[in-house]
């Protein structure tokens, strides 16, 4: 058994080793951060008590939005032809949330009391709600993924029971996602004195929710195309094209709401008169208008290269939005600005490397890109799946 594992590890390609080294380095810095405290390791200050970690969390949660969007489309709206995309997406979601939880833990000054949110509720706090939803939703993602992990194992008998409860769990999961995706926007409502008016809005929860739908789908598409190149396994082209079909609709609603809200609250003039903030906001809009146009074209939806380009624009636009809301568009106090320390960045890179490593290993060893029911696999694929048998 042990020998088999060692042989297996030896057979992995160099890419895995590089990722493992980066992950180990980053996680050691994380260990130092927990020991030394926030002041010595980060550039956070009284004027900027939140930094790049929070921006990362917001972006990653949005990216992981694919899991609930797809679950809703497949199970609730019965678009069963999209089913083959569910597993890889749920895995991306799960790994995304795990990274967020890890970084949130780093961000807690009193990480030794992280469990306090479980026992001391403040129902008015958006952050309280977000914490609960992320915790519950992560368990649901594990549940949704468990058939993949259990298949080919001696507990495969449990899969039947697990799948029986899929629908209620999916509905609970989509509900929880709706709540926390939007609550991440609510987080900034109370920060109106600090957040620039172009971003601050009572509709922030709606904006965050809708943009997470687009980001989630873009992530599914980008993931499918990348794994087509890396793992030689991917979604059927039509599935990918159908997912892409939703993106222009979602982005149109999002952009109309966002600009419309500025018009209604009489803030449209800020769009061109706020200097650096105008540039940031207009860039954000531009990054989303491009994929809106791209994905409206049928040829783009059916081309891997173009779809990846479109998805990259969506992701960039949503990342910029999250970074703006939590960092770039926070007005400085007495001219004091924030930029992250090298340790903040190193920890982020370490967590990202860990996430990519985990995804690759699971994609390598588990039947991620297949359907729930066993399908005839070409014999070539067998060796890599043999590991869980004994």
């Amino acid at each position, binding site marked *: 058994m042990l020998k088999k594992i060692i042989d297996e590890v030896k057979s992995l390609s160099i890419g895995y080793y590089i990722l493992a080294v980066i992950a180990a380095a980053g996680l050691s810095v994380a260990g130092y951060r927990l020991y*030394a*405290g926030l002041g010595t390791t980060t550039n956070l200050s009284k004027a900027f008590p939140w930094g790049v970690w929070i921006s990362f969390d917001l972006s990653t949660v949005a990216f992981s939005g694919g899991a609930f969007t797809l679950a809703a489309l497949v199970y609730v709206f019965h678009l*069963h*032809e999209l089913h*083959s995309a569910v597993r890889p997406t749920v895995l991306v979601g799960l790994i995304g949330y795990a990274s967020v939880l890890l970084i949130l833990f780093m961000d807690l000054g009193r990480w030794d009391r992280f469990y306090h949110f479980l026992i001391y509720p*403040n129902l008015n706090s958006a952050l309280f709600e977000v914490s609960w939803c992320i915790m519950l939703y992560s368990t649901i993602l594990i549940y949704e993924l468990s058939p993949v992990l259990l298949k080919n194992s001696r507990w495969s008998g449990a899969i039947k029971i697990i799948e029986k409860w899929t629908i209620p769990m999916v509905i609970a999961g989509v509900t929880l996602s709706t709540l926390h995706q939007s609550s991440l926007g609510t987080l900034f409502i109370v920060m109106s004195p600090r957040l620039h008016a172009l971003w601050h809005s009572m509709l922030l929860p709606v904006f965050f929710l809708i943009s997470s739908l687009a980001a989630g789908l873009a992530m599914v598409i980008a993931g499918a195309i990348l794994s087509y190149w890396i793992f030689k396994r*991917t979604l059927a082209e039509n*599935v990918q094209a159908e997912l892409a079909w939703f993106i222009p609709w979602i982005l149109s609603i999002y952009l109309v709401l966002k600009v419309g809200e500025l018009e209604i609250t009489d803030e449209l003039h800020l769009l061109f008169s706020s200097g650096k903030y105008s540039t940031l906001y207009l860039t954000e809009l531009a990054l989303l208008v491009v994929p809106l146009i791209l994905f409206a074209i049928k040829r783009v939806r059916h081309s891997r290269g173009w779809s990846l380009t479109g998805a990259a624009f969506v992701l960039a636009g949503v990342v910029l939005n999250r970074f703006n809301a939590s960092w770039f568009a926070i007005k400085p*106090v007495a001219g004091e600005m924030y930029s992250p320390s090298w340790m903040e960045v190193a920890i982020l890179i370490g967590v990202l490397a860990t996430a990519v490593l985990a995804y690759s290993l699971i994609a390598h060893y588990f039947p991620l890109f297949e359907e729930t029911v066993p399908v005839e696999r070409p014999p070539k694929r067998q060796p890599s799946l043999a590991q869980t048998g004994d």
Partner: protein
Amino acid sequence: MSETTSNGNEYGFLIDASRCIDCRACLVACSVENEVPMETTRIWIQETGVQGEFPNLARFSAPYHCMHCDDPSCVSACTVGALQKGDDGIVTYDQDRCIGCRYCMYACPFQVPNYEWKEQLPLIVKCDMCVSRLSDGHSIPACAATCPTDAIIFGKKSDMLAEAHRRIDQNPGKFMNHVYGETENGGTATFYISPVPFAELGFPAADEASPAYFNRLVTHGTPTVAGAVAVGLSSVYLTIKHHAEATAQGVGAAHGQNQAGPNEAEGAVVGTAVPQNPDLPQAAQGQEA
């Protein structure tokens, strides 16, 4: 717009910028009383810098600490309810509860909460009106007790506000006609009067409505939204399932089963039963490349 209504028992401060001589005795007193180092003290000085032309130079300053808002944003924001507003008007901090998320620091419109950045396991630093001193019934907060010019006075909140207006009314031209803290952030328990505009002292121009109010508008809707989403999803699921079963027997019922396979039709057709294609191994498709 405020959730808290006055019960007449709240404490309050009146701080008179025309009396402050920037001696910083209040900072020392607070530091000693609450055993916090000077660099993370709960009170500090805001000042105008030197104004005017020689020889008519002037410089104004005022001590600055938690305003003890009527509807505090920090209390609304705190993840674990470590910040609470008491009947006495004091916004207290429970240092055994705080998880150090620092949301309160961003939520406070006055940038009051400070953080022990140097500590390994840091806590928030925030004025609590010296609540432990007050319990004996006659002591007043250390900063107010120490101030040599009575620039900080302490008492019943309503008395402090009345005194602020009395000083403005009885000294025409001496003060700006604005009691800072009366309406800021939905009203606070700390009132300032000043001979110069508060912006020159570096005080933030807070809105009249507390952001905490807008925050509650949304967070109080959460259970409703959750219920609506869950019910909505369930009914969509059941409706489509029923429809699919009625039109094409068998399809759609076996959710979670393998029905994928590439769909010939392009685009999304909501609610249409999908033709059950023979299973096409995804792995095999990947290998075509």
